[in-house]
């Protein structure tokens, strides 16, 4: 396995993991409850769907280097830089947007009466999610995870290849040429397989 492929896969994997951990409660919240500011939250999460997350990351670094955020970030011991943490951040944002969208749709499809039934049978809210909502919405979670991985990988691979030409971009060592071809093949295959499986999963419901 080439260095390039290893870097892309590990960043995409880590970004997907973060997106799922953070996105699962968000998807449950958005799919099951109605509350004030729901549309706004939904819109904010969806921003990276249409707005390149890389650009968001770039702005974040630039703004925090010269702007008002610096003292706050310093207090949190975060030093903004073009390094792997930023890569993870930007890829994770895109992955989160996709994951939440797909998982939320499936959670929203779960019949509310099933959850009410579980509650009348003495289950707590957490137990209802564990015993009813998640088992019935798992297709959305799996499909969302797969698509999130595709998105994170694609986003990061693109950034990395372009960033090579930017002086000091991302701080990774120069990439050997043969790695690019291998990356392309692996990415194409995984995207194809994952999106096929994901669309099968989300269609099978109902």
């Amino acid at each position, binding site marked *: 396995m080439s260095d390039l492929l290893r870097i892309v896969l590990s960043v995409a994997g880590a970004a997907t993991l973060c997106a799922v951990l953070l996105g699962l409660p968000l998807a449950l919240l958005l799919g099951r409850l109605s509350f004030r500011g729901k549309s706004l939250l939904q819109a904010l999460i969806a921003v990276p769907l249409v707005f390149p997350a890389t650009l968001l990351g770039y702005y974040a670094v630039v703004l925090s280097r010269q702007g008002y955020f610096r003292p706050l970030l310093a207090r949190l011991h975060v030093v903004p830089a073009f390094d792997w943490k930023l890569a993870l951040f930007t890829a994770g944002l895109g992955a989160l947007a996709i994951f939440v969208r797909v998982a939320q749709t499936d959670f929203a499809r779960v019949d509310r009466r*099933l959850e009410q039934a579980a509650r*009348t*049978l*003495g289950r707590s809210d957490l137990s209802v999610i564990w015993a009813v909502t998640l088992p019935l919405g798992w297709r959305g979670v799996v499909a969302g995870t797969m698509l999130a991985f595709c998105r994170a990988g694609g986003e990061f691979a693109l950034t990395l290849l372009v960033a090579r030409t930017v002086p000091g971009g991302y701080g990774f060592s120069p990439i050997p040429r043969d790695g690019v071809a291998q990356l392309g093949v692996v990415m194409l295959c995984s995207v194809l397989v994952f999106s096929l499986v994901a669309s099968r999963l989300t269609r099978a419901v109902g």
Partner: protein
Amino acid sequence: MLSVELLKHLPGFTLDVRWQAREGVVALFGPSGSGKTLTLHCMAGLVQPDGGHVSVGGRILYDSVRGVRQPIRDRRVGVVFQGYALFPHLTVAQNLAFGLDRLPSAQRRKRTGELLERLRLDEVRRLKPRSLSAGQQQRVALGRALAQDPDLLLLDEPLSALDGPARRALRDDLAGMLRGFGTTAVLVTHDLAEACHLADQLVVYDRGQVLQAGVKADVLSRPASVAVAQVLGIRNILEGELLEAGRGTVRLAWRGHELVAECESGRGDLPRPGGRIAFYIRPEHVHLLRKDRPAAEAGRRTNLIRGVITGETDLGAVVLLRFRVEGDGPDPPSGYDLEIEVARLVHEKLCVHYDRQWEATVQPGAVQLLPNPPG
């Protein structure tokens, strides 16, 4: 003893109800959107009312004044949802055991086994709900709600997903099971036949309010008002003038005819003589005098009404005739005064098709008074 008093404001709808019932099966009956299901959800604790009181056999589940709000899990209330809401990802046995998760596993298995046997579900215990028949699904829903041996069972439109013969068969089945388990139950329905078959007490709902509550026979034979009669789907709700209240009978004037109605004496809710009073005559209680058998009909002269048949509706087993009375006063806007139900066989024998002029009689006992006039 079941005591319910609830206030709940929703956008465009207010539920404001108060009723009591004895142990047994109580049907909340009324048109769709009258607040029956909301009442059920408030009783189960799924919806928080704005005020009121719910108690079952003296145990308080909710009381806004005393600040009692039992959480759902402590209410000891089982719910059968509309469409049953069985967990599609669990087997029959797992569905039944879902509410027993606080029991030790040996006890849970024992209880589930009992239920499977009692509900004739042992053979399908490992199947998922979607491969069950409607009757089996109903039994799983009932068993799941009864597994924890609740004090109160709530059923929301239990038969609404079905129609025709299947519905009747399941109604019989459900009636048998409710009697068998003997748990006090409250059932929501907009089908009067269902309410009558399953329940022994009726609570009549309309637009978020209770119009009448009581023992089934009382509500059915003595609706408290025109509004109740309308909700119960009673036909031929009429209005006349009270002439005289005698002993056990009342004389009315209606469309130039004088009618005698039976009425328990000492009834305090009647208007004074000369006042308006509403009453109804069930279409099946109007008797057309048979011209082909004058001798047999000679004795029937009370409450004689003359009129013309203006139209008819064929309902299969019976035919509904629209009958306009020849008498005083303006003709009703619908063009007829009474609906008369005759058996199909009689309809054919009388040749109603060719002969439109008829005389009809009504037994005094079939003229039912409704104390509150419409409007």
